[in-house]
């Protein structure tokens, strides 16, 4: 479908969104690029001239860089694995006939509405606090030594908090996907002699592939830039400094805008590597 007329109309109608986003991307990006080649220290008079690639070199050679990249990937990966695995299980559970399904769904969806800041605060103070936290009480109740969550299990804690926030999202998408599975397919498999586990492995899981891809894509976009959860809980200590947080420290704590901008450029590159990688999969999966 399409006549010349509608094609030119289409181009015009795309324009606002494309131009806005192009502006939103290019203007700050250009400024960031410019800063990244400068010695830019607001606390020491601001722009102190061009320094070439010095900031870039300094940023990657800093001992914090590679661990930060690693931390970023571990958090993103960990949350993805947890939300997808539990999301699938939960979706399967919620798909079963039961009483009060609507209410259970409300309960499960609730964390999605909670601001990251609030959820981090609540988890940190009221659950993970090693003395007054509810988890500590629970551990003590069972006679165990309370875990010092945010220091001894810092990554686990952060992954847990973030997973809690994103689990509803994954669950809901996967639940809708499961519900869209043609029940005749499952019955066919049953007739074909597939046991419940085989039905899950051979029919349900492949059916969910597309939905899982979407979950992974959307979550990755948001997870790459998680900030509030770390800012509130560990402030980057105990090995929870992500690339985003490292940049934050460079720009805002050390007030070294040039160095931070170089970091920003690295983060953009990393994000785009992940993005391209994802898009490849998603692009393929979305066509199907």
């Amino acid at each position, binding site marked *: 479908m399409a006549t010349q007329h509608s094609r030119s109309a289409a181009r015009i109608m795309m324009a606002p969104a494309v131009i806005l986003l192009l502006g939103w991307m290019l203007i700050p990006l250009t400024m960031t690029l410019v800063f990244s080649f400068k*010695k830019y*220290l*607001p*606390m*020491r*008079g601001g722009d102190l001239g061009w320094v070439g690639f010095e900031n870039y070199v*300094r940023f990657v050679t*800093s*001992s*914090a860089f590679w661990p930060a990249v690693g931390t970023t990937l571990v958090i993103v990966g960990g949350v993805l694995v947890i939300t997808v695995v539990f999301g699938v299980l939960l979706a399967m559970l919620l798909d079963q006939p039961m009483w009060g399904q609507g209410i259970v769904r409300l309960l499960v969806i609730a964390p999605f509405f909670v601001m990251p800041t609030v959820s981090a605060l609540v988890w940190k103070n009221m659950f993970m*606090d*090693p*003395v*007054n936290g509810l988890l500590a009480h629970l551990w003590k109740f069972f006679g165990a*030594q*309370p875990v*010092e*969550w*945010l*220091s*001894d299990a810092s990554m686990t804690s952060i992954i847990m908090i973030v997973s809690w926030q994103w689990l509803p999202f994954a669950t809901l998408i996967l639940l809708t996907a499961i519900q869209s599975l043609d029940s005749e397919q499952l019955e066919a498999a049953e007739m074909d002699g597939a046991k419940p586990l085989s039905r899950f492995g051979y029919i349900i899981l492949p059916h969910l592939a597309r939905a899982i891809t979407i979950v992974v894509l959307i979550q990755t976009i948001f997870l790459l830039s998680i900030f509030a959860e770390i*800012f509130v809980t*560990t*402030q*980057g*200590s*105990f*090995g929870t*400094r992500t690339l985003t947080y490292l940049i934050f*420290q*460079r720009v*805002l*704590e*050390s*007030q*070294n805008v040039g*160095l931070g901008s170089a970091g920003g450029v690295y983060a953009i590159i990393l994000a785009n590597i992940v993005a391209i990688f994802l898009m490849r999969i998603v692009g393929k999966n979305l066509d199907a």
Partner: protein
Amino acid sequence: AYAETLTIATVNNGDMIRMQGLTDDFTEKTGHEVEWVTLEENVLRQRVTQDIATQGGQFDIMTIGMYEAPIWASNDWLVALDDLSEDYDADDILPAMRDGLSYEGTLYAAPFYGESSMIMYRTDLMEAAGLEMPDAPTWDFVKEAAIAMTDKDNEIYGVCLRGKAGWGENMAFLTAMSNSFGARWFDEDWNAQFDSEAWANTLTFYLDLMEQAGPPGASTNGFNENLALFQQGKCGMWIDATVAASFVTNPDDSTVADKVDFALAPDMGKGPRGNWLWAWALAIPAGTEKEGAAKEFIEWATSKEYIELVAENEGWANVPPGARTSLYENENYKDIPFAQMTLDSINSANPLQPTVDPVPYQGVQFVAIPEFAGIGTQVGQEFSAALAGQQTAEEALEKAQALTTDEMEAAGY
């Protein structure tokens, strides 16, 4: 002057919250309205620094500390407070505070309240341990007492100290402590000193003390967490800000209000004690159009009258401490149990010569250079990780040395 609306950024500490509640008095007197932007300390720092560095002009008054004041003043970012009215009596400000908030002799931020640090301890536990706290104890005594008071089965820990990473959190404490151990951040040529023996002693002592007598999860404890612990009666001693005294002695919140006493922060006999000096102060960013009104506010908020206003409304125990000499001369205030100790602590700190060996910087528990916030926090994270048992003291110091050198290099020292 016609009525203005002032936007004031402040920290969510109790004294400031109280000030918010009393804003009506200011509006009544001057006609100016006030919009409060109350933020948690870390967020506040980030917001105001961002705004001042870019000349964002979002705030007419910012709440800053002793760390920021001289640095910002040197960049001409603050309005000098050298023309305050006679009534205000600027000379009444405690000299240590005045020094810390001035740059080249000119005051750039008016102290709202000031603090040092001291030991708060449980008299009942001390007694039970068969010890007696001297007025000016040593670190060794603190350690001995702490170990003696500890009763982990009953969740009683001899000493609660800051462990949460941050230049204003564990590093405030550790830097002040290191001063008393004879350590310093930099030598005269700005070389990082974490490879020194004095630092090794400091950190080892701290880790050992916490290991033996500290509460669990100490590596995430800051002021608030320790306060909560102490109020619940879980700490034998707590070395922290003098302002905490009013909280731990407040029977509404504290289960141990009547069993607390105070002592000066410990030393090692090398001169400096392990206490810090800090003030939350109000400053006016250069370039604001509402300078006049802003000054009026600062005069109101840091005045003697304001102190009386608070006393009237909330009682003398709750007035903002540590800013004015006259407060400590006030008869009504003398009854407050922690008043004298607070004053003594403040007076025992010297921001201009904080360490045993000479240093090129000023600041007791911080180094008044712009890079310090970043460096301090990262070093704090290393030390915090050591406290959490994730690395040894040596490793932490090594990393601290490396990253400090690195950052200083990046900043062009």
